[in-house]
């Protein structure tokens, strides 16, 4: 029987997404913004999803936002790689609406799962997942 891979799955660093991961390694959150209609483009795309312009440029984000919704993962299911998340249980998977508008799927870290609430203000923090990949996660904003 083949050995089960228990490493956490990593994103592929595609050509469209490389600037995002390069910035993340410097603890900076960036997203593409259309230079014509000013819309934010997320996830990384070759063109603006709103107006079709190819003039999309990587732009620094404030790194703050609020919890649009979330769930608490208390069991791993599905594909074999899910097993790698077992030691983290319970953990929060959330939709964060950034102050600029785009919505990210991420984890809320730095507080007990019971304290996560909708509308809670959060700010970005970077966790190293491999040599090249620093995953942006979010923690509650200190009052």
């Amino acid at each position, binding site marked *: 029987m083949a050995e089960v891979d228990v490493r956490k799955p990593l*994103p592929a660093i595609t050509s469209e997404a490389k600037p995002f991961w390069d910035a993340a390694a410097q603890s900076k959150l960036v997203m593409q913004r259309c230079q014509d209609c000013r*819309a934010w*483009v*997320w996830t990384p795309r070759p063109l603006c999803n709103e107006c079709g312009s190819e003039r999309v440029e990587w732009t620094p984000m404030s790194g703050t936002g609020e919890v649009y*919704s979330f769930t608490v993962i208390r*069991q791993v299911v599905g594909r074999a790689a899910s097993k790698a998340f077992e030691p983290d249980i319970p953990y929060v998977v959330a939709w964060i609406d950034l102050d600029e508008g785009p*919505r990210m*799927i991420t984890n809320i870290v730095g507080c007990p799962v019971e304290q996560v609430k*909708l509308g809670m203000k959060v700010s970005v923090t970077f966790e190293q997942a491999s040599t090249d*990949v620093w995953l942006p996660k979010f923690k509650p904003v200190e009052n």
Partner: protein
Amino acid sequence: MSLRNKAAIAGIGETPTDRLGSKPGEARKSSAEYLTWAMCLALEDAGLALKDFQGQGLGVTIPTAYPQPFWPEEAAEILGITPGFLQGGATGGAGAVSLLGAMAAAINSGIIDIALVIGAAAPFSEHWGGGIQPGDMRDWEIPYGTMGPNSKIAMVMRRYMHEYGATLDHFGKIAVAARYHASLNPLAYLRKPITVEDYKESRLVADPVRLLDCVMPANGGRAYILASPQRAKSLRRKPVYLKGFGERSNPSYGPRAGSDALIMGVKDAGKVAMEMAEVKHPDIDFLQLYDDYVIVVYLQIEDLGFCAKGDVSFYERTDFTFKGQLPIQTGGGMINCGQPSTAGGTLHVIEAVRQLRGEAAERQVAKANTGLVTGLGVLPYGKNLGCCAVAILGDEL
């Protein structure tokens, strides 16, 4: 161009479902066996033979449980058909309803006169557990430990409860109505009636999603035969006419990078279908709604315009059983009949046909002349469901 009255369903077939030994005596069945079985049942129902489909339409939903890009062609080989118009249902769980539109358009254009559409899969026997395919899920979701559709729908459900004040009692009512119908459907898998309390006490799967919110995966096969109205009238069953069709894929309400995740594309697909069918809400006698989760059924009712967005009181005062003001899921839905991967949505087309033929026995809606069917598929990044198809069927030209 309108597809109103341009095609009719002339035959249906539904196999029993199994979960590989979860019930005593269940046999192991492959996708090929279910595919063939569903086809034989539909041919028998319509009084047709395999040779009637040579050079005609064949539509096959593409299952996610065992992704095989050439599956529709292989299905044709398994069945022994040489189609003149072969289509894969590529809109995920919406496939069976999308194919209704595609095949009706092909029939209306004159390139085919009849089409066989099959959704069959055996995820319990043949689940493909390997690699992760390129895309948003690989790069932006899975690295955060998302756990499939349950965790995504949990976020939709929690946000909805937060914004509109819906409670487990509202969702529970839908679960109870669907199970009640399943108790009256000999082909349903889960047939023991439940109460709202049973729903509320069921195990949390992905907070706030509970076990009784979720669709039940199963092995199974379902098929329908679509024909030109002239051809359908020459066959032995009472034709069920396509009245309206609408589809919206990759819908977005608000900016695409951060859309309103509580609005479903059936809002627009439904409008298109109802205009084509020339019907208003009171003309629709029942709904068969794609049901991967209870919250998804709930959202479709309001997004199709049967009540205002967020009007939770509508769910309190409406009887959703086959005897009520707005019957839904009259055979129990996929939640109780089983979801053979993305092939599952075929169920709703079949149940609508049964109702419109007056063959739904103990669960027959008294006045069933017009019904609405939906298909949904794909849970894209940060949004509600990505493929939405709506069909309106009727019993008269």
